[in-house]
């Protein structure tokens, strides 16, 4: 078993608002192993960004961690002082944000912005830090880096700026890279390039990645494991094959069904809207929108049922007493394919 570097347990985060306490994150647990990529998938407002931000101590001012634990190696992050956070941020754990157009300081030279974390954390003198920044710019695929190092953000395109943001994040060779929808703001063709670049650099720097996205299509090529988040809770997590070919939670079915593939003739959408987190539902939060939901799903929060040693899903459908439910055609097709794969694996 590989080394576990991050362990999040029963994380609870509230937002204090004028309307009341928004229970944004409720009992979220997951872990991250060295070198792997974990994708957290969910729609807007599902809490995936909030969860990630709590790992680097960048929650909004009105957010409060109500319980749980975030362990980075053996260090309990929730006990961190601001000083502790500063020594971790950009050094051991780095973050890439969604919009490269606004993520860079418009009045500072690119070279300085890339070199800054190195000068701060490794106390590298400026000249050396700039030399490293130059190497980094080449590594992220910026041509003519010797000249461009003295330019300002507005002289770069969106894709190039995201490359710079990646260079900033990786210059201290962090153990964890948090990527909050890093390709959402980019053109589709540029998206693919950035994803390839991230995979390539992950191998070189040997970093683990938590990749947040609402786009399952991006997940398939990127992640080792996937966690599906909805309304502040995890509903299902497992290896990327398990989530794509053996999904168990009806919400995961819905996500897969609403993803364009060659086999689907008509793109399905999930009806309804997520619940109000001022007063979260007591059962499965997805139950009100779920046509496969059982009475039990509405009444009581389902536990995580074990599908495989690496695959868990929180739905009463997996209870032995549950009635048989016919999943959508696309899911049945995927299940069949999964059984084939498993059979092939056990034969060989």
């Amino acid at each position, binding site marked *: 078993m590989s080394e576990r570097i991050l362990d999040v347990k029963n994380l609870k985060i509230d937002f204090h608002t004028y309307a009341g306490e928004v229970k944004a994150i409720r009992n979220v647990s997951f872990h991250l192993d060295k070198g792997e990529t974990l994708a957290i998938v969910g729609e807007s407002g599902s809490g995936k960004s909030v969860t990630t931000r709590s790992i*680097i101590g*960048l929650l909004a001012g009105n957010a409060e961690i109500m319980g749980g634990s975030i362990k980075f190696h053996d260090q309990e992050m929730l006990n961190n002082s*601001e000083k502790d*956070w*500063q*020594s*971790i*941020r*950009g*050094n051991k754990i*780095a*973050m890439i*944000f969604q*919009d490269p157009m*606004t*993520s*860079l*300081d*418009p*009045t*500072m030279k690119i070279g300085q912005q890339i070199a*800054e*974390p190195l000068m*701060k*954390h490794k106390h590298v003198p400026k000249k050396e830090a700039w030399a490293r920044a130059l190497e980094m710019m080449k590594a992220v695929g910026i041509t003519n880096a010797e000249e461009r190092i003295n330019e*300002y953000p*507005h002289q770069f395109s969106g894709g190039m700026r995201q490359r710079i*943001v990646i260079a*900033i994040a990786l210059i201290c060779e962090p153990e964890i890279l948090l990527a909050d929808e890093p390709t959402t703001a980019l053109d589709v063709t540029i998206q693919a390039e950035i994803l390839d670049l991230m995979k390539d650099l992950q191998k070189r720097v040997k970093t683990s990645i938590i990749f947040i996205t609402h786009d399952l299509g991006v997940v398939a090529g990127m992640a080792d494991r996937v966690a599906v988040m909805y309304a502040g809770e995890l509903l299902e997590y497992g290896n990327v094959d398990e989530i794509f070919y053996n999904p168990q939670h009806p919400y995961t079915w819905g996500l897969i069904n609403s993803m364009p593939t060659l086999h689907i003739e008509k793109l399905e959408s999930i009806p309804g809207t997520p619940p109000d987190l001022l007063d979260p539902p007591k059962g499965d939060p997805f139950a009100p929108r779920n046509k496969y939901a059982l009475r039990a799903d509405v009444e009581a929060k389902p536990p995580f049922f074990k599908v495989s040693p690496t695959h868990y899903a929180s739905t009463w459908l997996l209870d032995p007493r549950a009635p048989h439910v016919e999943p959508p055609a696309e899911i049945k097709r995927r299940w069949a394919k999964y059984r084939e794969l498993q059979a092939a694996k056990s034969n060989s």
Partner: protein
Amino acid sequence: MTKYILKRIAYMILTLFIVATITFFLMKMMPGSPYTNEAKMTKTQLRIMNEQYGFNKPLWEQYVIYLAGLVHGDFGISFQYSNMPVSQLIGSRIGASAQLGLQAMIFGVFFGVIIGAIAAIKRNTWVDTTATVLSIIGKSVPNFVLAVLLQYYIALKLGWFPIAGWGTFSQTILPTIALGVGPLAETARFVRTSMVDTLTSDYIELATAKGLSLTQVIRKHALRNSMIPLVTLLGPYTVSLMTGSMVIENIFNIPGIGEQFVKSILTNDYPTIMGTTIVFSLGLVIVLLITDIVYSLIDPRIRLQGSDA
């Protein structure tokens, strides 16, 4: 850059020409004459005087004569002080005005930036509210009221600084405060808004995610970006300092051109009115030019048109 500046200087000369023209005709429309005892003068005396000063000539001719003098750097002779050239009169007084204006500007901008930045960092706390209330008071109280209050309480009651006059540095303190509080309040409001904007921007979050401390984030990223828009206020500040100086210099009995300007209008001292107006305008257009150049230097996104970069 040189090309741009030359172009701007040409525009500046045009601007000054227009200012001179408008002022000249407006001034001639003012009621009254430069003579102190016009009522007691005989017709002959009046005629002789008018001929001596050229007032008998048609207006357009007076205008042409004045402009011709101006082109040669001749502002004419002041009516108030016998035979004293206006250029000499202004020259002897501009130092005091420039010093007062500069001091007030530095005082206002320096403390304004500090107060605005603190208010932004501590936004939505009592610190922010206090700063806001003080700024509104500072902006609302007219500088002549403040000047008198300062004279009464600080100078007369407490005796910390001289009540009026000009010459020593301690005499400059009260007028500097009286004149600088307006720009200070304005700067504080402006920097607060701009800084709040900056502090909630994505690149500040990225800077924080780099592991920088709050002080480092503000010093290296936030301050510069929130002060760029402040440069545009230098022009309006100059105007408010110039008009303010006319009142403040009178109250504190400072021998500056603001005080002289008011006196020259009251006495219909035409050459002095023209001279002071042109000097004021010249000061403003120079500040505006400097503003644009400074802007392009501190903000890499702005490249001056016609410059080489």
